[in-house]
C-alpha cells in the first residue's frame, strides 16, 4: 500500500484527496455548504472558468499557452450582445462563439505559421481583443438583451442549471477528443516533443492552429454563458481569468510545458479553485485572504508534482 502511494502521482491520489478534504472541512464549518442551493450555485459560478480551462488544457498540452482567453470573454460578450440586438438570440449566440473561434484562428496562424511564440502571440491578443471589445462597445455595457437569453446562464433543465449542463457536455466532448481521436493524440505528441512529432509525419502547423481555434471556441461558449449571466454585453469582463484557467490546468496536474495532463485533471483543478473560493466565502474569509490561499495552492500543487516527478525519474537510472 505504501509503495502504491509512493508510486502514484499527485494528480492520481493527492488531488482527489485534497478535494475530498476541502469538501469535508467546508461542510463541517458551514452546514449550508451542502445545501442544494449552494451546490448549484457553485456549479454555476465555476461554469465560465471550466469552459475556458478546457480550451487552455488543449493549448498547454500541446506545448503552448493561451493568454487571450480572459480578454476573449469580453470580446465575445460585446459581439454576442450587439448581434443579439440586431438578429436575435440565436444569431447572437452563434456570432459570439464564432468571434471566439476567429480570434483563436488568428492566434493559431500567428503561432503555427508565423512562428510567433504562443506566449507572445496570445499576449498580443489579450491586449488587442480587449481593445476591440472596448472599441465596438464604446466602452459602455450593452443592455436590453431579450429575457429568453437568460436561460443560458441562469436557467434550469430539470434539477440541473443550464450552464452546468453545457459544461458537462463540453467536458465529455473534450475528453473524447483528447483521449480517443487522432487530433487529441497529436496534441499530446506536439507537447511532448515537437521536433519528433514533425519527424513522425504529423502536420504540426495544422494541428497547432486547430488547438488555438478550439481554445477560442471554448472561450466563445464561455463568453456567451457569461453574457447571459450578466444579461448584458460587457467589455470589461474576464480580467485575469486567463491566469485562473492556467492555474486550473496546473493544479490538476498538467505539465506547464506540455505533453502531460488531461481533461479529467483540469476538471479537478477547476473544482478545487471553485470549491475553495465558495467554501472560504461561506466561512467568511475575506477575498483578500482567499487570494493568498489560492496563490499558495497553485505553487504547492506544482511543487508536489515536480518533487514526485524527480523521485520517480530517479528510479529510471541510466548507466
Amino acid at each position, binding site marked *: 500500500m505504501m509503495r502504491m502511494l509512493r508510486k502514484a502521482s499527485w494528480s492520481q491520489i493527492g488531488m482527489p484527496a485534497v478535494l475530498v478534504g476541502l469538501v469535508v472541512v467546508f461542510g463541517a464549518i458551514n452546514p449550508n455548504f451542502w445545501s442544494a442551493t449552494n451546490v448549484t450555485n457553485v456549479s454555476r459560478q465555476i461554469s465560465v472558468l471550466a469552459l475556458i480551462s478546457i480550451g487552455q488544457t488543449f493549448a498547454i498540452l500541446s506545448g503552448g499557452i493561451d493568454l487571450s482567453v480572459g480578454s476573449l470573454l469580453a470580446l465575445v460578450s460585446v459581439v454576442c450582445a450587439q448581434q443579439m440586438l440586431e438578429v436575435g438570440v440565436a444569431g447572437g449566440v452563434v456570432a459570439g462563439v464564432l468571434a471566439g473561434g476567429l480570434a483563436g484562428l488568428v492566434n493559431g496562424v500567428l503561432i503555427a505559421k508565423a512562428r510567433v511564440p504562443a506566449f507572445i502571440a496570445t499576449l498580443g491578443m489579450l491586449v488587442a481583443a480587449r481593445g476591440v471589445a472596448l472599441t465596438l462597445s464604446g466602452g459602455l455595457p450593452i443592455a436590453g438583451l431579450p429575457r429568453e437569453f437568460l436561460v443560458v446562464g441562469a436557467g434550469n433543465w430539470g434539477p440541473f442549471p443550464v450552464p452546468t449542463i453545457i459544461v458537462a457536455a463540453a467536458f465529455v466532448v473534450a475528453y473524447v477528443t483528447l483521449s*480517443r*481521436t487522432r487530433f487529441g493524440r497529436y496534441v499530446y505528441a506536439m507537447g511532448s*516533443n515537437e521536433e519528433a512529432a514533425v*519527424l513522425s*509525419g504529423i502536420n504540426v502547423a495544422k494541428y497547432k492552429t486547430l488547438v488555438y481555434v478550439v481554445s477560442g471556441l471554448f472561450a466563445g461558449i464561455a463568453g456567451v454563458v457569461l453574457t447571459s449571466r450578466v444579461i448584458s454585453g460587457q467589455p470589461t469582463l474576464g480580467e485575469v481569468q486567463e491566469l485562473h484557467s492556467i492555474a486550473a490546468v496546473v493544479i490538476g496536474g498538467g505539465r506547464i510545458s506540455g*505533453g502531460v495532463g488531461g481533461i479529467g485533471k483540469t476538471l479537478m483543478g477547476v473544482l478545487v479553485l471553485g470549491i475553495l473560493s465558495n467554501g472560504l466565502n461561506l466561512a467568511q474569509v475575506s477575498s483578500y485572504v482567499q487570494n493568498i490561499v489560492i496563490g499558495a495552492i497553485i505553487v504547492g500543487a506544482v511543487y508536489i508534482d515536480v518533487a514526485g516527478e524527480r523521485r520517480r525519474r530517479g528510479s529510471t*537510472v*541510466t*548507466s
Partner: protein
Amino acid sequence: MQVITERPLLEMKGIDKRFPGVHALNDVSFDVHPGEAHVLLGENGAGKSTLIKVLSGTFPPDSGDIRLDGQSVRVGNPHDAQVLGISTIYQEFNLAPDMSVADNIFLGREPMRRHAPGIVDRKALIDQARKLLDSLDTQIAPEMIVSQLGVAQQQMVEIAKALSLDARIIVMDEPTAALTSHEIDRLFETIQELKRRGVAIVYISHRLEEVRAVGDRATILRDGACVGTVLVAETPLDELVRMMVGRDLKDKFPKIHVEPGEEALRVERLTRKDVLRDVSFHVRRGEILGIAGLVGSKRTETARAIFGADKLDGGRIHVHGRRVKINSPADAIRNRIALVPEDRKRHGILAYLSVRENITLSALSQFSRGGFLDIQRERTRAQEYASSLRISTPDLERRAFSLSGGNQQKVVIARWLITNAEIFLFDEPTRGIDVGAKVEVFQLMGQLLKRGAAIVMISSELPDILGMSDRILVMREGRVGGEFERQEATEEKILTCALGGATYAVDASSGAHVS
C-alpha cells in the same frame, strides 16, 4: 605507466544504492591513487553514472563507505564534494553560456578588490583565469564568451574550473562523446598532464578503444555490480568485452547477405544552398548503403533532406523508379521512407508519451475511422511489434523516457515498421547504445533486408560501416567524395577519401585513431 604503491587517494567501498524497483548499485568498490586514471567501464545502465552521482553527492548512498586519504568522509551534497576536492565534469557542462570564460571559472568565487569588498577585481579575475588556461596549454582567451567556444574548449574551461577549485579528484563522464579525434588526443594529453600533477582521474566510458589510451586500471560494472578491476595494459580487449557484456560477442556484425533486388531509392543531384551539392546515390532492396564521412560532412542533412524535414533547392528523388515530390516528412512516409534519427532524445522519442503511443504515432490512420481511434486494436498491434523487437518494458503504458537507450531505439524502429516502411534511413543507429543492443539493431537490419527493405546507414563508426554495408558512400563537405564496394573498402581508403587531402580531424567515434 606508473607503479602504484602509495595509499589510495579515494576509496569507495561496498557502495549500495536502491531506487524503487531497481538495485542500482550492489556492493560496488573501487579506489584510485594520486596521479592515476581509473576507468569505470560498463554498458548503459550498468550503474556508472549512479556511482559517480554518489561520489559527487547527488545521490547519497544507502550504505557503503567513501574514504579520502583513508579517512571516512560524508558526501551528502555536491557542495561537500567540492570542499573535499572532488570535481565532476558531466556530459552536459555546467557553464553559463553567456558569460566569459574567466567569469565561469571563478563563478561565485570572484577575486574582490582589496579596498572595495563586493567589487570584483576584473584584472585579477582575468589574470588568474589566463594562468590556469595557459597551464593547460589551451588557446582560450579568458575574455571569450563561453557560447562562442566549441565543445572541446568548453570542456577545457570545465577542467580549468575544477583546477581552480583545487580538485584532487576529477571525474569525467563520457568526456569524448562529442569530440573529434584531434580534440580527443588533446584531451588525453591534458589528462596525462593532470596525472603528472598528482590529480586522480575517474573516467567513465563505454568505449573500449579509449580505455587503453587513458586508463591505468579499469573497473568493470555490470547490472550495478562490480565484475572486476583489471590492469588495462595486461587485459586484452576481448576480455574487457566479455566482462562488460557477460558473454562472448562472437559476431559483432551479424551481416547477412541478401541478393540485391530492384532499385528502391535513387537521389540525383540533391542540392541545398551552402549545405549539399549534387549528392547522388541509389540503394536497392536487400542492400545496405553505408554513408561514411567526417563530422560536418552533411550526412545527417542529406538524410533529413530526403525525408522532407529540410527543404531542397534542387535535385530529384525516385522511389521504386518513380519520381516523387517530398516536401514534408508526411510525404516521405507516404512513399514508405523512414528516418531513424541520430539524436534519439530530441528527434526520435516522445518522452511523455507511452511506449504504445510512441510506436503507433506515425501509423494512427491504421487505427482510426473518421478521426476516432480504436485503442484496442492499437494496443494489440503495438504489442505485436514490441514483442517481435523484444522491447524490454514492464508494460506498454510506461512513458518512453523510462526505457534504456537501446530500447528507445527499438521503439523508434518499431514506429517505422508499423508504417510498412521499405526504405530506411538510419542515422547513427548505434550511438549511445551498448554493445549488446548494437548487435540486436544490426540483426534487425538483417531481418529488414530479408523482407525486401533498402537501408541507408549513416555512421561515424568505421568498423560498423565496414562490417555491415554492401556499398559505402563517402561524403565530404556536402558532396559525394567517393563510393566503394564492400570487398574493396578499407578504413584507410575511406578515411583518405573522407579527408580529401584536407586536414580536417577524423570523427571522434571512427575508432580509426586508436587501438
